[in-house]
């Protein structure tokens, strides 16, 4: 792979995680338990979509084929999205959403931290901007995990069930594929095994504070990074892409 195509593919993947999670979270607008929580969540969603825009714009520049952020966000088929399976999982109940955010954000914050030290300035600049937002998101989501886990008997049981259910999507965050290896070799990219060790420590601490149990080792789902998605992805894309597909180039 040429340097430009590695960077374009890697930035696209980062953009995909941010965009798909942002789209998931925006579905919570008008469905949050409290007005203040809703406003917070909408802010976070827009943070993620803002990150996606930066990553896609950069990917388009590196690719050099004239594609812009909208082309990458809205005009690709499902198998070209390389986001993690975790971020496309449905919102479910509030405990499900909270667990998804904690598991992803505790990984993402470590990944961005490593990316601020990568040798490609385009990606490290975006990572440095994004990490400030994500540190706050993680603070918010992990506090909620503690409230739910250490809350009532029902909230505890339901949150534990969410944790056990979503745990199987965490494996692929730490399994490097060719692109991860290439990024690491050529641009001092993240070392996923190191991130895994730190992630487990950090997540174990939050889970302990929330009076929840760490899920045991289990069979991990994977495929997101290679474009093989769960059954939820098609519905998400259909809704997200509808306007751009029906009215190409539509503007306000």
């Amino acid at each position, binding site marked *: 792979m040429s340097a430009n195509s590695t960077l374009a593919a890697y930035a696209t993947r980062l953009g995909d995680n941010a965009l798909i999670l942002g789209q998931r979270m925006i579905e919570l607008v008008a469905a949050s338990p409290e*007005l203040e929580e809703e406003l917070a969540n909408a802010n976070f969603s827009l943070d993620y979509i803002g990150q996606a825009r930066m990553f896609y714009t950069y990917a388009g520049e590196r690719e050099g084929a004239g594609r812009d952020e909208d082309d990458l966000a809205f005009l690709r088929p499902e198998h070209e999205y390389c986001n993690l399976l975790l971020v496309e999982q449905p919102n479910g109940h509030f405990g499900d959403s909270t667990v998804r955010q904690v598991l992803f954000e505790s990984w993402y914050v470590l990944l961005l931290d490593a990316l601020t030290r990568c040798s490609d300035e385009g990606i490290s600049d975006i990572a440095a901007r994004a990490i400030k937002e994500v540190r706050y998101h993680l603070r918010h989501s992990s506090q909620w995990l503690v409230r739910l886990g250490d809350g009532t008997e029902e909230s505890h049981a339901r949150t534990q069930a969410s944790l056990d259910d979503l745990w199987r999507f965490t494996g692929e965050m730490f399994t490097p594929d060719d692109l991860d290896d290439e990024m690491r070799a050529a641009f001092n990219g993240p070392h996923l095994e190191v991130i895994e060790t730190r992630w487990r420590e950090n997540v174990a601490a939050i889970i302990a504070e929330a009076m929840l149990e760490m899920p045991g080792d289990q069979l991990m789902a994977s495929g997101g990074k290679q474009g093989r998605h769960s059954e939820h992805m098609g519905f998400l894309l259909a809704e997200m892409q509808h306007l751009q597909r029906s009215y190409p180039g539509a503007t306000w």
Partner: protein
Amino acid sequence: MTKQEWPLYEVFIRSRSGLSHRHAGSVHAADDEMALNNARDTYTRRSEGVSIWVVRSDRIVASDPAETSAFFDPAEDKIYRHPTFYEIPDEVENL
């Protein structure tokens, strides 16, 4: 189950260093940490602040509107308590 309202918190924001905190509004929250988060997300989204205070509204001791005259009127005719007899240099800001 009847829905229980979360307590109300008053939010004070300092817009930049050197200024004092000003009342910005209020938020509902289940605990102090959440109140701080909610205040941040509700009132500082457009870079309005560098510091936030939150305090539960029911912990604020307020003067009684019925006693306004006893509280505040006696100060009105005592102009010698106002520092209006000094020249303030132009360089002094935020006084």
